[in-house]
């Protein structure tokens, strides 16, 4: 694919902003290319826009909206997909489900999205064997400065 800007809802997207999900999302392997977009104003929420299907996207969030501490382990499979090398910046994002006109908002802590920001690679991982669920409720942010939670990313062997 030649170097191009892609028009997405009237906004141009550069190749360098595109995050590649080699295996797509879980259950949606065809969605391999995404771009992360911001909403207006300070918010831990972002919009993950699909470039394979321009009609759809996901609301994603910093884990702080659902947990003040969040600990994940990347197995070898995930480390390979993310092409992790020493010093790379990793970002963990939670897929948010909004139901009932905003009255029910939950986060999927069982299947977080991990992005290697340094290499524009992403994947969704499965935290099998942890007590997390796909329907974690919003938690109340107790104080300012809690916009980013304490996220630990471990490397499995």
């Amino acid at each position, binding site marked *: 694919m030649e170097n191009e800007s892609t028009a997405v809802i009237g906004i141009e997207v550069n190749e360098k902003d595109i995050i590649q999900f080699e295996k797509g999302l879980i259950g949606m392997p065809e969605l391999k290319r995404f771009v992360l977009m911001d909403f207006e104003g300070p918010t831990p*929420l972002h919009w993950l826009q699909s470039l394979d299907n321009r009609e759809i*996207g996901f609301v994603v969030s910093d884990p702080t909206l659902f947990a003040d501490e969040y600990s994940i382990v990347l197995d070898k499979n995930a480390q390979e997909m993310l092409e992790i090398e020493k010093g790379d910046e990793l970002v963990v994002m939670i897929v948010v*489900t909004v139901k009932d006109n905003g009255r029910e908002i939950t986060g*999927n802590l069982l299947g977080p999205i991990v992005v290697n920001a340094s290499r524009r690679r992403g994947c969704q991982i*499965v935290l099998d064997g942890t007590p997390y669920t796909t329907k974690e409720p919003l938690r*109340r942010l107790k104080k300012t400065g809690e916009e980013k939670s304490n996220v630990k990313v471990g490397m499995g062997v």
Partner: protein
Amino acid sequence: MLVLTRKINEKIVISTDIVVTVLSIDRDQVKIGIEAPRDISVHRKEVFEEIIKSNREALLDIKKKDNIISQIVKSKSLHRD
């Protein structure tokens, strides 16, 4: 579905490099060991399906994007105490 009967410590090979071993059997539970190349992921099926279901529910039409955000922002749960 291919059905094979194995005893403890017996193995099954899938493709050429995925090996499944029966490690122990205890009443109604079987412990299974899986060796697979690094690019192959292995998970309990129900966990995988739960995430697929959650992804489907979370997926939004782009036309709803801004509406959804204002709904979330207005949601009481997001306001600090």
